[in-house]
């Protein structure tokens, strides 16, 4: 039994603002069928897919047990089916654990989220908080992230101009990614003139409402050749949950991200992410989070986010060449979209945005207000 887990295949639909004309089941089927075709994997209960990890959210799907709505579609009858109800990157980590523990050889991962289905993404994230102290005062991920943005910009010398640069670059990179949401290029002036949503967060600092679905097939090392000649290996994983109440936390310390990195770097043997990782994808749902998360993973110095942007840090370290979450991926799947970019880059299939000789990628995902829960996945060629 080998000690590595491979991603053998990946299929996605394009990130779109509003897939009103297709149910999420149809979006998932558009991902599943190419995976079956690419790999020839079956649902044979000895040799095929015996366990399926899904990622979805009850509130965004407007139903309880949201995975129930896709059991048929992903072929989960008479076998294991388990749901991740937070960033799907944890589902990939869980699928990896299913294989490393020897319980499964082959695991299918399927995730979907149609943010457009709900009238208000902020109403949905308000429900992430308790009904006693936080929901009644209207806390949601947007206004809580605004607390983080204010504190972080102050700490790290990040200005409104810096954030505008982050948004402009995100949209430019996304224009080279055929599966990215067509959010459109913007100028610095567009960003600086965009209205405030929750100061200091402006409209263009916030990721736009997005619908997406994606699937991946994972398999143990010894059987990988049955499914692909070009596997991408998962070599590191870590996650960590910070405290619940925002008043208990240091919102800018990246506490849980640093812990997640410790675990993932230790597992993958990464000493210094600046030199040891070729492609970096961070779930920057809000523009200020790009430099902040870069600090958290050890790419930028503590409190140096502003300088990091000024010195061209994001481009130098190949950060978010996909366009990042900021250009548009749905909540729940931000981290998976990061892993998808890593997978594409390591396979050498990234076209105009290909990083030459990319050997190792880092994918980051986060769940909760102000990055409460953080996840890091390391991929290698």
């Amino acid at each position, binding site marked *: 039994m080998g000690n590595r887990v491979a991603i053998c295949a990946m299929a996605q*639909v394009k990130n779109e603002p509003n897939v009103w004309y297709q149910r999420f089941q149809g979006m998932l089927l558009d991902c599943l069928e190419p995976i079956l075709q690419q790999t020839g994997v079956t649902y044979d209960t000895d040799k095929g897919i015996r366990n399926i990890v899904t990622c979805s959210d009850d509130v965004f799907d407007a139903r309880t047990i949201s995975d129930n709505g896709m059991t048929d579609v992903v072929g989960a009858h008479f076998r294991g089916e388990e749901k991740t109800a937070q960033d799907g990157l944890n589902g990939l980590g869980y699928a990896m654990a299913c294989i490393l523990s020897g319980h499964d050889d082959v695991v299918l991962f399927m995730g979907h989220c149609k943010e457009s289905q709900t009238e208000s993404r902020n*109403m949905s994230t308000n429900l992430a908080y308790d009904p006693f102290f936080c929901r009644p*005062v209207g806390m*949601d991920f947007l206004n809580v992230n605004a607390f983080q943005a204010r504190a972080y910009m102050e700490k790290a010398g990040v200005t409104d101009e810096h954030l505008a640069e982050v948004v402009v670059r995100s949209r430019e990179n996304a224009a080279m990614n055929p599966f990215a949401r067509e959010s459109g290029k913007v100028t610095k002036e567009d960003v600086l003139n965009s209205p405030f949503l*929750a100061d200091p967060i402006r409209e263009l600092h916030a990721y736009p409402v997005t619908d997406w679905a994606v699937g991946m097939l994972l398999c143990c090392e010894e059987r990988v050749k049955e499914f692909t000649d070009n596997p991408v290996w998962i070599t590191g994983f870590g996650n960590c949950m910070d405290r619940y109440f925002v*008043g208990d936390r240091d919102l800018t310390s990246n506490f849980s991200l640093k812990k997640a990195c410790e675990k993932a770097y230790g597992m993958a043997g990464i000493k210094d992410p600046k030199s040891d990782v070729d492609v970096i994808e961070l779930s920057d749902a809000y523009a200020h989070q790009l430099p902040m998360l870069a600090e958290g993973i050890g790419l930028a110095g503590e409190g140096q986010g502003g300088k990091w942007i000024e010195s061209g840090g994001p481009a130098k370290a190949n950060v978010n060449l996909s366009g990042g979450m900021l250009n548009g991926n749905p909540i729940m799947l931000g981290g998976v979209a990061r892993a998808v970019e890593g997978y594409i880059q390591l396979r050498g299939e990234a076209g105009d945005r290909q990083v030459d000789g990319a050997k190792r990628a880092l994918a980051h995902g986060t769940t909760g207000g102000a990055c409460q829960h953080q996840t890091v996945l390391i991929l290698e060629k």
Partner: protein
Amino acid sequence: MKEGFDTTDCFLVDGKLALPYTYFAGRVGSKFLTTIRDEKKIMGIKCNKCNKVFVPPRQTCDVCMEDIRDNWVDVQNTGKVTNFTVVRYDDKHLPKKAPYVLAMIQLDGADTPLVHVVEGIDLDKAKIGMKVQAVFAKETTNTILDIDHFAPA
């Protein structure tokens, strides 16, 4: 729109997830909320090991893992703003009409800030360090909104 997608017979049905609930607030949460409602007084819970006073209260100190549920202390109805945003969007889950200030407020005598609304100031005058004071609601809603908002002290 996906290229070439045939939208013949594609129809959107309106729906809603809405289900009224009652949630037990826990003994600690209950006492905190009913004291605000009945006595117009805000209480915290102190960990005698690390000396931190938590607001909102909780029954275990997550650092020391001490059971602190009985260590009630009065905190002041006044405090200072440690962080804030101006909410400029309207939505059904929000307690006030935009624009308004949502702040993290560290009450005098507490170590952990509480999130609440600040009213009665010009939006561009809001700042960190600002002194504020609780304004209690005239009519109870049996929620944390029995503190209606905070106002400059």
